[in-house]
């Protein structure tokens, strides 16, 4: 949950509408990353449903929703991508799309910033530093 965002009683996840909102967000987000040549190769998957489920879990986590992800999982889950060259540029591109997705869904700027702050806190784990 989002208790690591100081003073926040309700998570962004709850404020923007919980699970149904994540369902709407994931398709927008997935289209954006799949259309971005800088990062699309990290998101290509024969099984698009599985890929969408992973992204929904990611969106839920960064919005402070119920999530089983730990820093250790983030490291393990991205280790093979880091070997393929995953770096800050890619991380920033994903953050851009995350921000654009939430903005498109009408999420207020301060809430978007909170989400981006949670995402930023995962940078070291994602990039296996």
């Amino acid at each position: 949950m989002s208790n690591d965002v100081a003073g926040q009683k309700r998570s962004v996840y709850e404020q923007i509408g919980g699970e149904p909102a994540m369902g709407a967000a994931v398709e927008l987000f997935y289209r954006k990353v799949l259309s971005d040549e800088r990062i699309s190769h990290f998101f290509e998957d024969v099984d698009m449903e599985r890929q969408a489920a992973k992204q929904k879990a990611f969106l839920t986590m960064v919005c402070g929703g119920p999530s089983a992800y730990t820093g250790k999982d983030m490291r393990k889950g991205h280790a093979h991508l880091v070997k393929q060259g995953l770096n800050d540029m890619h991380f920033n591109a994903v953050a851009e799309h995350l921000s654009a997705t939430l903005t498109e869904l009408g999420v207020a700027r301060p809430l978007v910033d909170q989400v981006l702050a949670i995402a930023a806190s995962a940078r070291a784990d994602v990039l296996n530093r």
Partner: protein
Amino acid sequence: MAKVKHEGQWYGLDEDESVLDGLLRHGVSVPNSCRAGACQSCLMRAERGEVPAKAQVGLKETLTARDYFLACMCRPEGELEVAGAGAELRVPARITTLEKLSDSVLCVRLRPESDFEYRPGQYVSLLRQDGLARSYSLASLRQEESLELHVRRVAGGHMSGWLFDEARRGDVLDLQGPAGDCFYVPGRPEQPLLLAGTGTGLAPLYGIARDALAQGHTGPIWLFHGAVEASGLYLVDELRGVQSRHTCFQYRPSVLRGPERVGVSTGALEALIEQTCPRLAGWRAFLCGNPDTVLSLRKKLFLAGLSLKDIHADAFLPSTPRPKVGAGAMAGAPDPSR
């Protein structure tokens, strides 16, 4: 080491070897076809031991609840006692007609000898008496007496060669299934439908289109059938007939190459769809046939604004010969995409 017990005999599995590969390597006969978790021909039941979750992906709950699993996807950790999917899951069916739809496509009609529930567009495993198995999509409607399958002649293909050259009216085969979620669900009768397929990918689409019409679909239904050349197109007159009887139905055959023909477009299926139906957001799509075409179209349609839940894709995986050595040979097999 992982071990499998079958008919009272224990067989050792090599590292990362599937139950299917292990049993075949030891000379045990198990029906199988795609070896990639899609066709469900290699269905088996666990009598004791732990079945990995991956071996039950895509199976109906009625099957997983009874410990059925796919032998080709099953790499057990320890000991597993298994039995072949027995007669309880199979329905005998008698061939009623064998009719050539083109030089390379045979229409096989079969009458099940007991109740066989299915939706047009789903697929079944067809098992010959000697255990040879292949899966085919259903082109018929439930109210029809016989099931209709379209069989493409595959060079050196065991089942297709037999059906083309040797099978006779009255021959009995077993059906197992059906499986797959590429079928029409009523409820949004005005939603435009895009049906696109290559080769015998037309079989499920032919069933789905007629099923949608029979269930009162009123929105536009576009059926694109692509072939390499004109000889690969079939049911052309029937589909033109459907089009003349239903104003909402549009049939668009196309070929990759060959001389110009009236009513047949030349070019890639994807380009033709893009040209003919430029605004696809909000549509429902059914994609069947060649895996590369199906997967590439699915991505294009998703990017064009279709929701993933509105895209039903059935990539036809070829049957895969048994690997010469047990382990590792499955590494290159594609993920099932159903």
